[in-house]
């Protein structure tokens, strides 16, 4: 461990603000920086956050470079459009961590969840619930968006194993709830005998609303999401229909904060362990998917999150130890506290309960 953490300027570049997920990501980063300050670092976080296109995000990054930042945490708005400016940053000695979206720029390290595996969890759950037989609707995000493509690849892999499941409709819900709801209600009205709807992120809530308001004899299964609003709706649906089952796989906005931890490890002298690199470009650290909410644990999570804002995404981020484990020497350079997911919306009691719940889940997984 080091004596003096030093003084660091961290740049954050976010090119989309019309999403609660992104705002939560930025908040997590700023809060984690506070933990570093408490651990003795002087740290300034410069956030560039606005709705903008790729040239606009390039400008954001250039502004960060012009301010002489030491590291950049970027949520790239494009899979390769930022490569050259980020490579330039790397050449200038800036540590660049791409979060949420994997990119192939040389010298850049991606800190992301494995989108494909993430999607497979809920797809597998749908397949299991259907017992391998049935008529399925897929509502996806932006066609052509890398994360969406990776997720749909995962879904396809799962479905390949179940020839009895017939995909009777597939459509984009533009990753927003209202469109998801429109698409779902359209399908429900025009496609007979739907057994299940697989969807992702915010669109799930729309799909479930559509199912709940449609006049149907048997309601299809809906793959859910891990937002507080969805849990509330899940709970309401349970009240009307105690057999209702769903699943929420966390896609953590805390991945940005995870990126910050990795960046700090590198700034403090760590060398990334290339043997742990994964992903299409061979430069990704896949952080674990924090947890999955299924019917079995629903009540526990709901008890904790029932008062959280609907838009709150159930969160998770790596500890400094985990960040250090991606380095060659594997030991954290600094003792930094862990930020509990939900810090924005939970009180201390709830946070404690959450910590306990997560521990027991982890233990369950190990056991």
């Amino acid at each position, binding site marked *: 461990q080091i004596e003096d953490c030093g003084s660091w300027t961290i740049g954050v570049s976010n090119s989309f603000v019309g999403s609660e997920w992104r705002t939560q990501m930025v*908040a997590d980063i700023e809060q984690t920086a506070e933990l570093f300050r408490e651990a003795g670092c002087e740290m300034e976080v410069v956030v560039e956050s606005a709705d903008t296109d790729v040239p606009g995000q390039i400008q954001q990054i250039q502004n960060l470079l012009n301010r002489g930042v030491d590291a950049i945490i970027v949520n790239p708005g494009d899979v390769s459009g930022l490569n050259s400016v980020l490579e330039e940053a790397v050449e200038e000695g800036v540590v660049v961590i791409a979060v949420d979206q994997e990119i192939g720029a040389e010298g850049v390290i991606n800190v992301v969840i494995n989108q494909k595996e993430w999607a497979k969890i809920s797809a597998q759950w749908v397949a299991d619930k259907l017992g391998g037989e049935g008529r399925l609707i897929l509502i996806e995000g932006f066609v052509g968006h890398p994360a969406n493509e990776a997720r749909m690849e995962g879904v396809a892999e799962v479905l390949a194993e179940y020839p009895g499941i017939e995909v009777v409709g597939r459509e984009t819900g533009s990753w927003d709830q209202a469109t998801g709801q429109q698409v779902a209600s359209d399908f*429900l009205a025009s496609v007979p005998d739907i057994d299940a709807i697989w969807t992702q992120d915010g669109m799930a809530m729309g799909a479930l609303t559509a199912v709940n308001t449609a006049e149907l004899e048997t309601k299809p299964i809906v793959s859910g999401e891990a937002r507080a609003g969805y849990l509330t709706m899940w709970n309401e649906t349970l009240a009307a229909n105690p057999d209702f089952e769903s699943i929420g796989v966390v896609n953590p906005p805390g991945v940005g904060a995870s990126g910050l931890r990795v960046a700090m490890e590198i700034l403090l002298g760590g060398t990334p362990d290339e043997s742990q690199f994964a992903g299409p470009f061979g430069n990704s650290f896949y952080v674990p998917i924090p947890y999955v909410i299924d019917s079995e644990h629903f009540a526990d999570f709901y008890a904790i999150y029932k008062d959280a804002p609907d838009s709150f995404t159930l969160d998770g981020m790596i500890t400094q130890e985990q960040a250090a484990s991606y380095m060659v020497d594997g030991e954290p350079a600094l003792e930094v506290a862990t930020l509990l997911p939900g810090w924005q919306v939970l009180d201390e009691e709830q946070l404690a309960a959450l910590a306990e719940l997560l521990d027991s889940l982890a233990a369950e997984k190990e056991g």
Partner: protein
Amino acid sequence: MTLLRRLAQMNPALLALLLAVVLFFAGGLINPNFVNVNQAINIVRLAAFLGIIAAGQTLVIISGGEGIDLSVGGVVTLAAILVFRFSGGDTLGLIPAGALALAAGTLIGVINGLGVIAVGIPPLVMTLGMTGVIQGTILVVTQGQLIGSTPPIMAQLISQPLILGIPGVVILWLALGGLMWLLLERTTYGKQLFAVGVNRTTARLSGVRVPRVVITTYALSGFLSALAGVMLLGFTQTVFLNLGGAYLFPSIAAVVVGGTVLAGGKGSYWGTMSGALVLTLIDSLLRAAGIEQAYQSIILGGILLALLSIYGRQHRLRQ
């Protein structure tokens, strides 16, 4: 060709309605399950939201002077967020929260109107700029966390069947249609609005207070967009930062497909209602046809162009 000519001379509102019916049954050819009562109700319900959002847009476009309101998406989002935040999730709270939302929408409209008529900013950029301001304000106030809940009565009134299996929003929409007709055709304001849309100098020299009419129009647009936002909350049950954005350009397209002229001074809300139905149907049809996204987009563009060519044409220079 003569058929097209004949069509072109028809009342655009009626034409669009006719087209909607034809499209609906054409849907049966693509997908036999498409034609059923459920789907019909579903489409009218979806169209209702677009139609309500396009109501203010219709007024603004009629007011001329390149009138257009790009802030409707922002106002819809803001209104939904306000009700969500301040209704306390119960029926009684809906009234003050709804009033707050409508007041906010109206205020934004007034500012738009002032910017357009008093400062002389072109409506397109004024309302676009206002969208940024609304979005920025939402971010500052909420810090990205949207706290609140939806009064259950809204789901009952809006998205669930109210009478005879018809969702409340459809009934509300029809009522709005009647009110809009009254407003446009049977009030002094309506007559003055058309006058302002055609020729502002003539209007002024005939005693019309042009700035007042224009500001009222943008204010009404803000009010109606806010109303649409409240309705939309009843549909989605929750809010998110981008709630209204997806409706912006379709709302303009609905107005135009309904025969209201972008140059101002001519149009009707019946037309806009039919336009909303047509657009929603096309959307649903493409979905039912199960076509790939890229082709859907191309076909949608083509259909819109074809629709505009039938009756969205301007007079020719050589007579």
